[in-house]
């Protein structure tokens, strides 16, 4: 400490958060709310909680993440409930596990509301400056430096740099060294990270053009309205408060002419010319990617979405691109309704530095640097919701580590957040990672409707959920269980009234007495329907009834997944030492030793998910560990 220059700004905080995007906001709020003196850095205070790409929150599996963030005490769900302008429950006609909320946000309002929350949170300081260097002593973070030379002595750092590290925005042969939206990139931190031995990746993503609403002919498009009854994201939002007038999105299509323009100019795309080196995500390809890879598809959808109520700008969902601006203009104009379109902002691809996330523990702390945490696109993910989820966990754990308390891990059977983080830190990841419901093996248990039942207790124990809210969830659980029990125990006989009821509902008549639960289970019936023949039913809140219906109706599937979870937990509970050297295990195959030493899993379960580690390796490992245990005992 003495060696440092005296003539510079020097301050001390508990936790320092780098970045004020969706991950940074959750991280900073979590730390401040847990009582830690927190400082958050951003290159632009006006860009807090910026949505630089699509103007919506949620969507398939992402909606689940937002619900889980909310149950743990995060902010994203509350903020979108305050600022949405249209909302839909996707897959409503499918099973409850894949229902997903998605809301269009008023971008400016979303950003402003989040800023309000941050600015009114105790213990939280917001600072506009670029962090350029981390200070690490003996494998532990002790501080960070800004580009201007100011020194911040801290106990923990959370890195949420998003797409800003050495960012470059590209279209055609134009390449701007900026972050999204022309914001200043962070050009110095990468070198500091590399000098600390952190392995970096370079990823790429892209965004479509924003166009002037007045130049669009909506009569040539299909209107996409929001749901009549809006369901809020946050479990603490009053459902009545979100019933309001909504704005529409619009659907149109590309055509052969669009595709011809793209193919004629494909050599001018930086993606195909090789000017872009970063790895892009397969799930959100640029329009030129789609046309090249799926050449047999005659048309692609284009969703025209409002950026907010404050502006005329509209987002051209489905047409992200890095083609030169003259080609962008030409191809957009071939789309019905966009013949006279005026572009406000060009589409572009963006390249940025991020880390290989296998360097992280499932707590999102760096394995090699104590007190250093990270979340969001910096960890190689993509999407606002994925970022917020990690930011929250990284923030909570940074705080818990400073407080000397046990950190939290959400496992794959507890939430999508668990799947997300486990996939990132355990599996090889070669593109920006996006959440998908198919990645969750226990998805029937991880529904968006029961995120509160699954995770509120964790949030409460961490200290982000109030006692009142926790007790309300406990009470809800109680009501659900009691009601399920009652339905299982209540039998109805094959009397006239019942038979008539069944007949009216196209259900087979009873031969002998049956429980009400058995009736709920019938495909053509449900909990609401059988109210008529359920004489002792007492009024229950809507969300309790919903759970009762789902739990009974899908009991067979649910109990199968529960027994799989039991198997899973057995391996998760066999802990491994993160400092263990696997070359010590005789007869473990070479490949397994290498992989295990690289990943340093925290449990046998995690080890078993590493690609290249076979079931036989796991057996060998188990036997070896038992041998060590007995040796210690003797």
């Amino acid at each position: 400490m003495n060696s440092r220059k005296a003539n510079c700004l020097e301050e001390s905080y508990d936790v320092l958060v780098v970045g004020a995007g969706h991950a940074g906001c959750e991280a900073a709020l979590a730390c401040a709310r847990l009582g830690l003196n927190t400082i958050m850095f951003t290159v632009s205070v006006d860009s807090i909680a910026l949505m630089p790409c699509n103007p919506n929150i949620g969507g398939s599996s992402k909606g689940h993440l937002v619900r889980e963030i909310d149950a743990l005490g995060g902010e994203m769900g509350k903020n979108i409930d305050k600022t949405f302008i249209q909302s839909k429950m996707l897959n409503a006609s499918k099973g409850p596990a894949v229902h997903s909320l998605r809301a269009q946000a008023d971008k400016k309002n979303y950003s402003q509301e989040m800023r309000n929350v941050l600015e009114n949170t105790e213990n939280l300081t917001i600072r506009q400056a670029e962090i350029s260097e981390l200070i690490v002593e003996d494998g532990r973070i002790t501080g960070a430096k800004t580009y201007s030379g100011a020194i911040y002595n801290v106990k923990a750092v959370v890195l949420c740099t998003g797409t800003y590290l050495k960012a470059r925005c590209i279209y055609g042969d134009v390449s701007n060294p900026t972050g999204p939206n022309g914001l200043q990139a962070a050009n110095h931190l990468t070198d500091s990270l590399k000098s600390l031995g952190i392995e970096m990746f370079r990823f790429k993503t892209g965004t479509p053009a924003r166009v002037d609403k007045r130049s669009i002919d909506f009569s040539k498009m299909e209107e996409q309205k929001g749901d009549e009854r809006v369901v809020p994201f946050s479990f603490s939002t009053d459902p009545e408060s979100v019933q309001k007038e909504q704005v529409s999105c619009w659907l149109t299509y590309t055509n052969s002419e669009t595709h011809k323009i793209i193919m004629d100019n494909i050599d001018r795309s930086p993606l195909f010319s090789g000017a872009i080196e970063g790895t892009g995500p397969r799930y959100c390809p640029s329009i030129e990617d789609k046309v090249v890879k799926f050449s047999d598809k005659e048309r692609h959808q284009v969703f025209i979405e409002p950026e907010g109520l404050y502006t005329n700008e509209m987002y051209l969902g489905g047409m992200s691109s890095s083609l030169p601006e003259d080609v962008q203009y030409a191809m957009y104009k071939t789309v019905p309704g966009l013949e006279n379109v005026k572009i406000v902002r060009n589409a572009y691809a963006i390249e940025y530095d991020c880390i290989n996330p296998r360097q992280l523990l499932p707590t999102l702390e760096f394995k090699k640097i104590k007190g250093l945490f990270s979340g969001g696109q910096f960890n190689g993910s993509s999407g606002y919701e994925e970022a917020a989820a990690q930011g929250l966990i990284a923030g909570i754990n940074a705080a818990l580590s400073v407080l000397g308390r046990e950190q939290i891990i959400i496992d794959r059977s507890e939430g999508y957040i668990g799947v997300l983080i486990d996939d990132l830190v355990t599996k090889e990841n070669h593109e920006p990672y996006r959440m998908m419901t198919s990645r969750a093996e226990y998805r029937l248990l991880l529904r968006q409707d029961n995120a509160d039942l699954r995770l509120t207790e964790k949030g409460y124990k961490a200290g982000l959920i109030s006692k009142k809210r926790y007790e309300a969830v406990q009470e809800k659980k109680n009501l659900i269980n009691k009601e399920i029990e009652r339905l299982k125990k209540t039998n109805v006989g094959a009397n006239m009234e019942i038979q008539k009821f069944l007949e009216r509902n196209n259900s087979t008549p009873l031969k002998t007495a049956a429980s009400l639960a058995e009736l709920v289970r019938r495909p053509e019936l449900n909990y609401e329907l059988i109210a008529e023949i359920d004489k002792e039913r007492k009024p229950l809140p809507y969300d309790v009834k919903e759970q009762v219906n789902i739990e009974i109706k899908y009991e067979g599937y649910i109990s199968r997944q529960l027994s799989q979870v039991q198997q899973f937990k057995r391996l998760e509970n066999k802990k491994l030492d993160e400092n263990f050297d696997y070359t010590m295990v005789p007869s473990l195959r070479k490949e397994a030793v290498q992989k295990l030493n690289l990943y340093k899993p925290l449990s046998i379960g995690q080890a078993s998910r590493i690609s290249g580690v076979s079931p036989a390796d796991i057996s060998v490992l188990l036997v070896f560990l038992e041998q060590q245990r007995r040796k210690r005992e003797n």
Partner: protein
Amino acid sequence: MSGTDTIAAIATGITNSGIGIIRISGDLAISVAEKIFKPLKENKKISEVKSHTIHYGYIVDEENIIDEVLLSVMRSPNTYTREDIVEINCHGGITVVNKVLETVLKNGARPAQPGEFTKRAFLNGRIDLSQAEAVIDVINAKNEYALSSSLSQLRGSVSEKIKEIRDIILNNIAFIEAALDDPEHIEMNNYGFQLLDTVRDIKQRLNELIKSSENGRVIKEGIKTVILGKPNAGKSSFLNAILGEDRAIVTDIEGTTRDILEENVRIHGISLNIIDTAGIRNTDDVVEKIGVDKAKAMAKDADLIIYIVDTSRPFDSNDMEIIDFIKGRKCIILLNKTDLENGMNSEDLKILESIDKAYIVKISAKNQIGIDEFENKIKEMFFHGEVNFNDEVFITNARHRHSIAEALKSMEMVEQSIENNMPEDFFTIDLMNSYEALGSVIGEAVEDDLVDRIFSSFCMGK
């Protein structure tokens, strides 16, 4: 130790005489036994008998009696694995032992993984610490054997069929998942209706696989026996002589048997899995070269080699190559064509006689002379324990059959879900289980198959 699933395997080496023991270990061991054991004394209940007692009765599959057995019940913790263990002593005979194992598996146990009994015994504190290394070796060795036997002996057509089925399943999962993930770009209405035909077709294919596995097994069981000899030494004639039918193409043109022929024969009740290879000779013919290379590879991990010598011709470089190759391996040398005039040099026989561990039998494949003597030799070697084969092959087979049956069960669940009008996302749960079960047969883990298939087959949004 409670909370572990119940495993079963054949505990004795496979022989065709004496008794075979099937061991069941785990929480359900006793209840599985109770389901399939019919005690002689009608009112005896296996779940209520004393620990470490032996009971006489029958193993029944539904109503059919499979074998008369002695059944030992050993309750936790004083057992090999420290779990509940039931051992079924059957009358032996490969077929019976297998059938009993199958019945056990049908009633709630799963096939043990390679070395799993030993692993459990160790993890539950039954095996001494000093033996830990040996335990690891057992696991590694058994696993390696299971892997190699599983992959090398999986009949080509089986693995092709399974790959095909898996591909269809994965395509369907990918479509459903893509549509669920991106409902606004990919439409999916009443997909169950469409899927139903596919599901029924797959069910039928899996049923056929199971049926064929009951006859021929999924993988070939038996003493892996490879026939070697220079071209036209009479390998195929010999095979026909012991099979009693014209399976191999027999001509006088050298190099007719280009493909590898596999046949399962029973000799005095001993199962031999005989592989007829292309004649070993230096060849420029590309197709034949492949056959020759394969023959050498096969012979490398054979349990027994049968070297057929053409006594009507003197040794050539091909013979010398074979002799080099068989040194140190279990081998029967057949001096064939004794019906013709001897054309060998006097030195040649001496070379053969000097080979260690090799038995020499004179035959005439064409006239079926000496075949009895050959068969007696096999019997003798088997009962003296000079040749045997690893029981892992049997348990691997059981594992495969079990997996295919699991896959079938999952497809039945899909069918049921469709018929019950369940939403599409429920289909993929069981489709995925089926996909995984089939993957374990051909040794393919799931990893990122689904996500890759989704992105390669469907144009996702944004």
